[in-house]
């Protein structure tokens, strides 16, 4: 089905922590982008907002949909199709958004499109921006995902590599916890690292065997832990533990850790570009907001004669605009779903 010019898609996202709804015209122009954690639901709707995502989503999903429609000044008759995240994520959370989206598609008699959350992150650089030039290599790195793709088009993506243990963003969170820098760890490490020496500590860069494009960030987390607390079973002539680190030393550890992660990510992007001959590098996911990664990717793109595309910061984290935007391309490719569309918790990504 070809969406008419100016077609508006309503996107719904609830794969993990965030309930979100967005309206996007022609697959790029964001008319509304409502994210539950950014709306003061507590005061507007009353009641306690529970922590666990699926129950919270039930209470928030109608509110974010109403908020998106209200803020764009758009009515149901203006919605051409409904796009929804159906994988991967927490099953109970996914089902909330999926059920809401199916209901809307049914009562509005609009086409339904199922979208993979991680693929959508790779398309986020197009939001409120120019069309993306393909072929591209996309790195999606967040708290839950670290994946590298070859993209022939928005709808034709091949997984080149993924994490075999911790996600990059998870490593940031856990190291921030070890260094007691606060949560979320990504911005906390980024801030601390700005005044630190990235060469102070030589943390391991785990590149895995051969020319693998997979990732592993579990080892560096342990290396930071051992650097701070000492290697178990080893006797030290000076006391270990975070309380014996000066603020400058902590900033140095943060900067050195960040540099090691960025080096690994940049190395894999370089290999992927060399393997595929892509002319564009796409970044997506919360880690794409990291200033050191952006700088390294910028330098790499220059060296490889590629164009780097990063999403605006608000589209790095989970949102529904990327779902509606990628959904538009699926619609054009005729990849619509019916009301039997199922949620899948775990997929290769």
């Amino acid at each position, binding site marked *: 089905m070809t969406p008419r010019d100016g077609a508006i898609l309503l996107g719904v996202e609830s794969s993990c922590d965030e309930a979100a709804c967005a309206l996007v015209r022609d697959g790029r122009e964001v008319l509304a982008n409502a994210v539950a954690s950014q709306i003061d639901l507590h005061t507007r709707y009353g009641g306690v907002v529970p*922590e666990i995502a699926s129950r919270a989503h039930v209470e928030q999903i109608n509110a974010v949909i109403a908020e998106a429609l209200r803020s764009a000044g758009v009515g149901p008759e203006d919605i051409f199709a409904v796009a929804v995240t159906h994988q991967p994520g927490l099953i109970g959370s996914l089902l909330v958004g999926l059920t809401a989206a199916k209901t809307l598609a049914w009562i509005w008699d609009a086409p339904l499109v199922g979208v993979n959350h991680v693929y959508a992150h790779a398309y986020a650089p197009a939001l409120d921006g120019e069309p993306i030039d393909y072929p591209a290599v996309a790195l999606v790195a967040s708290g839950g995902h670290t994946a590298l793709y070859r993209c022939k088009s928005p709808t034709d993506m091949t997984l080149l590599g993924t994490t*075999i243990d911790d996600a990059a963003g998870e490593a940031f969170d*856990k190291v921030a916890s070890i260094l007691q820098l606060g949560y979320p760890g990504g911005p906390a490490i980024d801030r601390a690292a700005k005044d630190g020496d990235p060469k102070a500590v030589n943390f391991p860069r785990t590149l895995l065997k051969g020319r693998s494009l997979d990732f592993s960030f579990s080892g560096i987390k342990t290396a930071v832990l051992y650097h701070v607390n000492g290697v178990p079973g080893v006797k030290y002539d000076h006391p270990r533990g975070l309380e014996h680190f000066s603020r400058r030393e902590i900033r140095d550890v943060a900067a050195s850790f960040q540099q090691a992660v960025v080096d690994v990510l940049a190395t894999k992007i370089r290999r992927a570009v060399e393997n595929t001959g892509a002319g564009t590098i796409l970044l997506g996911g919360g880690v794409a907001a990291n200033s050191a990664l952006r700088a390294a990717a910028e330098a790499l793109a220059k060296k490889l004669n590629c164009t780097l595309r990063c999403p605006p910061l608000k589209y790095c984290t989970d949102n529904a605009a990327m779902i509606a935007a990628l959904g538009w391309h699926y619609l054009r490719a005729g990849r619509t779903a019916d009301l039997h569309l199922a949620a899948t918790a775990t997929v*290769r990504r």
Partner: protein
Amino acid sequence: MEQIFKTQSPAETHALGRKMAGELRRGDCLALVGCLGAGKTVFVRGLAEGLGCDAGLVSSPTYVLVQEYPTRDGLSLFHIDVYRLSEPEAELADLGLEEMLEAGVVVIEWADRVQRALPRAYLRLSIDIDGEASRRFTLTNESA
């Protein structure tokens, strides 16, 4: 009864997971207890392979809370991580622990944080760091 296993490398921890998979049946809950860097995810990767799951699906569930890997017997291995939950004991039930136990085997990382929300009978595997790469695994049968 208490059983102790020692491993000297992540590869041995992985192999221990593979071996232990043979002991697990539908409805079993394996509670993992061990600090950051103990090797919990490496162990679960071995466990998943031992159950015939697609190893490519296995990664840390810290962020997504639960991963589900189909086993060769048509069941599922549910890989839960409660590290990120703010009220883990209340929230574990909301994740659907009972339904998961009916559908397969459940392994929980950071299980010491959900002690009171675990099933009546479960296996507890605590991991102690003995040295840079050596780990000591203590397996016990727990029942209320």
